[in-house]
C-alpha cells in the first residue's frame, strides 16, 4: 500500500467509525426513551395471554355409581366480523338450523359492526346435534370436520365460529330433580345438592398468563376439577317411588305427593321426591312450574300440620317419663275439654275403655290430649324440641325449613286473613295449643323432621341425622361420610316399647299399609287444613301422611308418604297407607329383603 494513500484510508475509516458511533448513540437514546418503554410494555402485554381455567364441575352419582349429573359439550356460536360477507345468510342459517330468532341475529351482527367489534357472540349452549346441521349446511360440499372452530362448510358462513365448552347435563332428566337441583348458565347451582355443595362441585377457577412465545412456554397448571359427589340415593328405588307417587296422585286426585325412603340406621336417604318434578335439562320451565304454593322440594322445604302421625311424639314422651305404659287404660268419653276448647275424636265417637295401644291404634285425639295434660306443657314441649321439631334436621340440602312451633311465652304469631296485611291478628300460645299439638294440629313440621324424629324408635332412642351425600371424590381420593347422630330424646327402653306399639297397632287394625310376609310398624296422620282466607279448618281438605318402617326386628328402611288434599278420601288410612304398602312391596324386592319367615330361617342356618 503506497504510503501517500494512507490518509485517505484513515479518513474513510474515521468516517465509518463516526457513523457507527452515531448509530450506537442513537440506538442507546431510543432504547432509553419513554416511547421505547411504552413499546416494551405493549410487547410484554402481547407476549402472553390472560386465561382463566375453569375446572369442570364435579359429577353427581347415585350410591351405585350411576351418573345423575354430568357435563356435556355444548357450543358457543360467535361471528368474526371481519369475515362477514352476508349477514342475512348467517341469520337465515342460524334461525333454520339452530332455532335462533332471525331478526335478533341480524340486529346483533349490525350492532357488532357498528361498534367496530372484532368478534361477537350470537348464541350459546347450543347442542351438538344442531351444530352438526350447520357443519353439513351446504349439501354440495363435504361437511366441516369435527374439531374445527368454523361452524359451517358453506363459504358464506365462514365467519361463524363454534367454540365447544362443557355445560351441566342430567341424564336421568326429572329423576330425583327435587334432590339434585340444577345449574344455570352462570354456573351457579340452584336448590338441592347443586346449591348446597356449590363451592365443592364448582372447584376453584385459576387465572394464569400463557406466554405466546413458544420459547417461554410452560406447562399449564393442573387445576383440580370440582369434587364429585356420591349420593345416598339409589336410582332404582328413586324411580320406583316416583312411579308409585305418580300413580297415587292419579288414583287419589291429590294436589301433590311427597315421599322419603331412608335407611333408619345410618340416616342415608335412599329416595326423596315430591311433585311437581322438573326436567333438569329444561330448567327454564322452573318459573312456570314452581311458585310459593309449589316449593322445589316439599320434603325439606314445606311445612304442614302433621296430624295424628305426631301422636307418636306425645306417647313417647309420656312413656319415657313413666306416666303411662302400653297397658294403661283410658276411658274415652268422646270429648275432652282443655284450655277452653273441646277436643273430639276423628269420628266424633266415644271409644270407651282403651289401652294406650288402643289409643294409638284407633288414633284417638281425646286420649292423646289427655296424655298431653298428664305430661304438662313443660314436659311436652321439652320432648317436642328434643325430637328436633322447630329446628332444621341438618340434612345436606339447600333451604331446609325449620317448621313452626309456638312455645309457652313465645312472642305472638301474626296471623293474617288471606293476603290482606291490614287484617292481621296476634296469636299467643295458650293451653288450647297444648291440647291440639298433642295430636299434631296447630304446629307445622317438615316431612324430613317427622322421619328424623321417628328414627329414635329404631336406634335405641337416638336420632340419626339424615344425609344425602355418601361420599366425596376429590383429588383422586374418596372420602366417605359416616352416620351422625342428632340426640337421644328418649331411652332405649321407651324406643323399643314405641316400636312394638306401632307394629302391633298396625297389625291389629288390619291396616292397608300392611305387606304380607313382612312385619311393619307405622302410624297414619290425617290433618285438616286451615282455610288461608278465614283461618278456619276445613274438614274436607286434609293432609294425609304415613310414616313406617320394616322389618320391625331388623329395620332396613323407613318410608314416609304425604298426600296433599286427596279427593277420593280424606283419611290417611285410605290414601297414604296404601301408598306406603305399594312402596314397601316393591322396595323389598329392590333391596333383596326376603319375607320375615324366610329371612329368620336363613339367619338361623
Amino acid at each position, binding site marked *: 500500500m503506497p504510503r501517500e494513500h494512507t490518509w485517505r484510508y484513515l479518513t474513510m475509516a474515521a468516517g465509518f467509525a463516526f457513523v457507527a458511533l452515531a448509530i450506537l448513540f442513537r440506538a442507546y437514546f431510543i432504547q432509553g426513551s419513554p416511547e421505547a418503554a411504552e413499546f416494551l410494555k405493549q410487547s410484554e402485554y402481547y407476549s402472553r395471554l390472560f386465561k382463566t381455567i375453569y375446572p369442570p364441575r364435579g359429577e353427581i352419582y347415585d350410591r351405585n355409581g350411576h*351418573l345423575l349429573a354430568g357435563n356435556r359439550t355444548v357450543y358457543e356460536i360467535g361471528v368474526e366480523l371481519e369475515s362477514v360477507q352476508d349477514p342475512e345468510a348467517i341469520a337465515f342459517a342460524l334461525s333454520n338450523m339452530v332455532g335462533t330468532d332471525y331478526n335478533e341475529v341480524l340486529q346483533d351482527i349490525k350492532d357488532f359492526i357498528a361498534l367496530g367489534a372484532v368478534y361477537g357472540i350470537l348464541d350459546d349452549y347450543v347442542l351438538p346435534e344442531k351444530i352438526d346441521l350447520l357443519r353439513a349446511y351446504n349439501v354440495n360440499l363435504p361437511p366441516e370436520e369435527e374439531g374445527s372452530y368454523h361452524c359451517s362448510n358453506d363459504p358464506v358462513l365462514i365467519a361463524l365460529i363454534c367454540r365447544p365448552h362443557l355445560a351441566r347435563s342430567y*341424564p336421568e332428566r326429572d329423576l330425583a330433580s327435587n334432590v339434585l337441583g340444577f345449574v344455570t348458565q352462570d354456573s351457579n347451582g340452584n336448590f338441592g345438592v347443586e346449591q348446597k355443595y356449590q363451592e365443592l362441585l364448582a372447584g376453584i377457577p385459576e387465572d394464569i398468563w400463557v406466554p405466546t412465545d*413458544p420459547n417461554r412456554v410452560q406447562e399449564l397448571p393442573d387445576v383440580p376439577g370440582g369434587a364429585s359427589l356420591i349420593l345416598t340415593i339409589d336410582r332404582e328405588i328413586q324411580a320406583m317411588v316416583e312411579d308409585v307417587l305418580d300413580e297415587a296422585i292419579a288414583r287419589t286426585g291429590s294436589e301433590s305427593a311427597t315421599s322419603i325412603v331412608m335407611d333408619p340406621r345410618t340416616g342415608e336417604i335412599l329416595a326423596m321426591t315430591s311433585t311437581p318434578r322438573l326436567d333438569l335439562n329444561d330448567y327454564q320451565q322452573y318459573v312456570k312450574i314452581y311458585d310459593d304454593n309449589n316449593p322445589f322440594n316439599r320434603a325439606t322445604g314445606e311445612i304442614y300440620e302433621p296430624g295424628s302421625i305426631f301422636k307418636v311424639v306425645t306417647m313417647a314422651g309420656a312413656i319415657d317419663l313413666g306416666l303411662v305404659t302400653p297397658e294403661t287404660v283410658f276411658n274415652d268419653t268422646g270429648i275432652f275439654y282443655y284450655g277452653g276448647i273441646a277436643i273430639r275424636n276423628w269420628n266424633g265417637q266415644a271409644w270407651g275403655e282403651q289401652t294406650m295401644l288402643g289409643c294409638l291404634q284407633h288414633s284417638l285425639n281425646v286420649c292423646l290430649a289427655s296424655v298431653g295434660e298428664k305430661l304438662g306443657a313443660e314436659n311436652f314441649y321439652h320432648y317436642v324440641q328434643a325430637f328436633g321439631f322447630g329446628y332444621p334436621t341438618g340434612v345436606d340440602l339447600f333451604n331446609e325449613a325449620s317448621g313452626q312451633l309456638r312455645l309457652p311465652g313465645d312472642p305472638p304469631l301474626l296471623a293474617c286473613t288471606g293476603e290482606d296485611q291490614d287484617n292481621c291478628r296476634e296469636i299467643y300460645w295458650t293451653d288450647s295449643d297444648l291440647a291440639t299439638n298433642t295430636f299434631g294440629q296447630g304446629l307445622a313440621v317438615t316431612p324430613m323432621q317427622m322421619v328424623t324424629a321417628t328414627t329414635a324408635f329404631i336406634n335405641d332412642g337416638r336420632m340419626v341425622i339424615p344425609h344425602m351425600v355418601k361420599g366425596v371424590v376429590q383429588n*383422586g381420593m*374418596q372420602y366417605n361420610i359416616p352416620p351422625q347422630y342428632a340426640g337421644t330424646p328418649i331411652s332405649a327402653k321407651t324406643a323399643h316399647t314405641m316400636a312394638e306399639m306401632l307394629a302391633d297397632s298396625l297389625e291389629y287394625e288390619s291396616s292397608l299399609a300392611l305387606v304380607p310376609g313382612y312385619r311393619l310398624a307405622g302410624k297414619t296422620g290425617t290433618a285438616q287444613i286451615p282455610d288461608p282466607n278465614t283461618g278456619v279448618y276445613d274438614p274436607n281438605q286434609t293432609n294425609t301422611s304415613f310414616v313406617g318402617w320394616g322389618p320391625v326386628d331388623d329395620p332396613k328402611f323407613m318410608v314416609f308418604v304425604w298426600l296433599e288434599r286427596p279427593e277420593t278420601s280424606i283419611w290417611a288410612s285410605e290414601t297414604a297407607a296404601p301408598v306406603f304398602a305399594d312402596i314397601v312391596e316393591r322396595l323389598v324386592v329392590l333391596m*333383596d329383603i*326376603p319375607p320375615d319367615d324366610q329371612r329368620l330361617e336363613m339367619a338361623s342356618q
Partner: protein
Amino acid sequence: MLKRSKELIQAYKETPWRRQMQMISFVAGVVVVLALIAAVYLNITARSATTGRLVQQLQSERADLEQHIEDMRTQLAFILSVEQMQKRAGDLGFKPVAPAAITYVAVAEYRGRPVGVELAPRAGREFGPDAPLPAAYTNSLFDWLAALFADLGGY
C-alpha cells in the same frame, strides 16, 4: 550453508503474502466459530420453539380429550338411564317381579350386594397392611448391599 538456510527461512517468514494469509486465516477462523455458535444457537432455539409449540398443542389436545371423555360419559349415562333401561327391558319381554314370585335361596358366604360404590381409593387406605410394597421398592442401595453381605455371610 547453515547461515544461508537461516536467511531463507527468515525471508520466507517475512514474506507479505504469508502475513496476509495468517490474518485471513485468523479472521476466517473467528467467523467460522461465530457461525458455528450462531448455528447451534439457532438450532437449539428452533427446536425449543417447536417443542414449546408442541407442548401447547398437546395441552390443548388434552383439554379437548378430557372434555370429550366427560361428554361421552354423560352420553353413555343417557343411554343407560332408568327410563331407557326400563324401555329396553320391556321390549325384551321383562316385567317387574312381584314379591310372591321370588324364591330366596341361602347361599353360603354370600354377603349380599356390595354397599356403596368406590369411584376412587378411599382416603387413608391407599397402602394398607394387606398390600405391602415389595422390599425392592423401599430398600436403599445400602440396605440392599447389607442384605447381600448378610446373605453371603450365611454361607
